[in-house]
C-alpha cells in the first residue's frame, strides 16, 4: 500500500539540528494535522521547531497504483489551429495514478465539426514512451480509459486516463501520442513525473 512518512526538524538549545522521522503515517491524514503533530511533539521538548516535511512513496515493485500529485500541465497547441489553447489539468485520484487530458467539447476545433457533443470515436493513444536519466526505470502503460463527465460549470468534458506502472520512483518524462480518427491527426504530449515532497510549514 502507499506509504507516507514525516520528518520533523528541530534545533536543540545548543543550536544542533535534529531530525525525527516517522513511517507508517496515514496517507489520508490532513497535511495541517501532520504539521500540528510535528509542532506539538517539538513543543514537548526544549527544542525549537524547524518544520515538518511529508514524503509520499510507494513500493513500485509490488504496487500498480500510487498516490501522486501533479501540477497543472499546459499544452499550447493540440491541433493545427494555432489559436486553440487548452489547459490540461492533471488529476490525482486516491488509489490510482492517472494522467488525464481534458477536452472541452463546447469549443469548436478543427478536428471535429461538432459543437457541444461527444466524439463518435474517442481519441486513442498510439504510443506511450518515456525517457529518464535513470536507465533502470521501466514504465508500462497498463490501461487506457475514456471518460466522459458532465460538469455544471464547464459543460461536457471528456478525457482519457492512462494508468502507468513505474518500476522505480525517479523523475521521468512520459510522452503520449494521441490520434483523432476524424481528422487523422496525431499530436505528441509530454509530461514529466516527479516525486512529491510537500513541506507542511
Amino acid at each position, binding site marked *: 500500500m502507499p506509504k507516507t512518512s514525516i520528518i520533523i526538524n528541530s534545533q536543540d538549545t545548543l543550536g544542533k539540528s535534529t531530525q525525527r522521522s516517522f513511517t507508517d503515517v496515514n496517507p489520508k*491524514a490532513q497535511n495541517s*494535522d501532520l504539521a500540528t503533530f510535528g509542532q506539538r*511533539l517539538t513543543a514537548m*521538548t526544549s*527544542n525549537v521547531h524547524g518544520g515538518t516535511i511529508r514524503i509520499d512513496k510507494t513500493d513500485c515493485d509490488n504496487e500498480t497504483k500510487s498516490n501522486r500529485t501533479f501540477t497543472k500541465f499546459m499544452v499550447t497547441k493540440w491541433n493545427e489551429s494555432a489559436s486553440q489553447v487548452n489547459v490540461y489539468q492533471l488529476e490525482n485520484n486516491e488509489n490510482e495514478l492517472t494522467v488525464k487530458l481534458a477536452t472541452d467539447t463546447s469549443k469548436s476545433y478543427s478536428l471535429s465539426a461538432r459543437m457541444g457533443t461527444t466524439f463518435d470515436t474517442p481519441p486513442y493513444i498510439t504510443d506511450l514512451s518515456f525517457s529518464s536519466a535513470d536507465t533502470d526505470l521501466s514504465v508500462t502503460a497498463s490501461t487506457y480509459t475514456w471518460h466522459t463527465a458532465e460538469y455544471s460549470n464547464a459543460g461536457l468534458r471528456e478525457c482519457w486516463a492512462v494508468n502507468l506502472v513505474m518500476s522505480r520512483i525517479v523523475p521521468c518524462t512520459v510522452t503520449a501520442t494521441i490520434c483523432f480518427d476524424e481528422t487523422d491527426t496525431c499530436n505528441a504530449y509530454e509530461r514529466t513525473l516527479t516525486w512529491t515532497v510537500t513541506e507542511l510549514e
Partner: protein
Amino acid sequence: MADVIKNNRTLNMTLSFEDGDTRAISVDNPDTSLNLGTHVDSLGAFCREKNIFLGDKGGADCTGIREAYIKNDKVTYLDLS
C-alpha cells in the same frame, strides 16, 4: 580538568493500535515541566482523532499512546588526569 557530567533526557512513548500492535517512538530533550499524564495523553488523543499513524502490519488505526516514560541518563566523563 574536572569531571564532565551530561544529562541525556529522552521521552519514550508507546503507540497502540487497534490490532494490538504497538510501536515505540521517542523524542530527545523533553521539557522539564512536562506532565506525562496530561501532555502525552493529549498528544495520544490527537493522534487517535486525526488518524496520524497506521499500524505497520495491516494499517490498523492508532488508539493512542499507551505508556510514556522519561529516561534520564546521567553520563559522567571522568577526569583521569
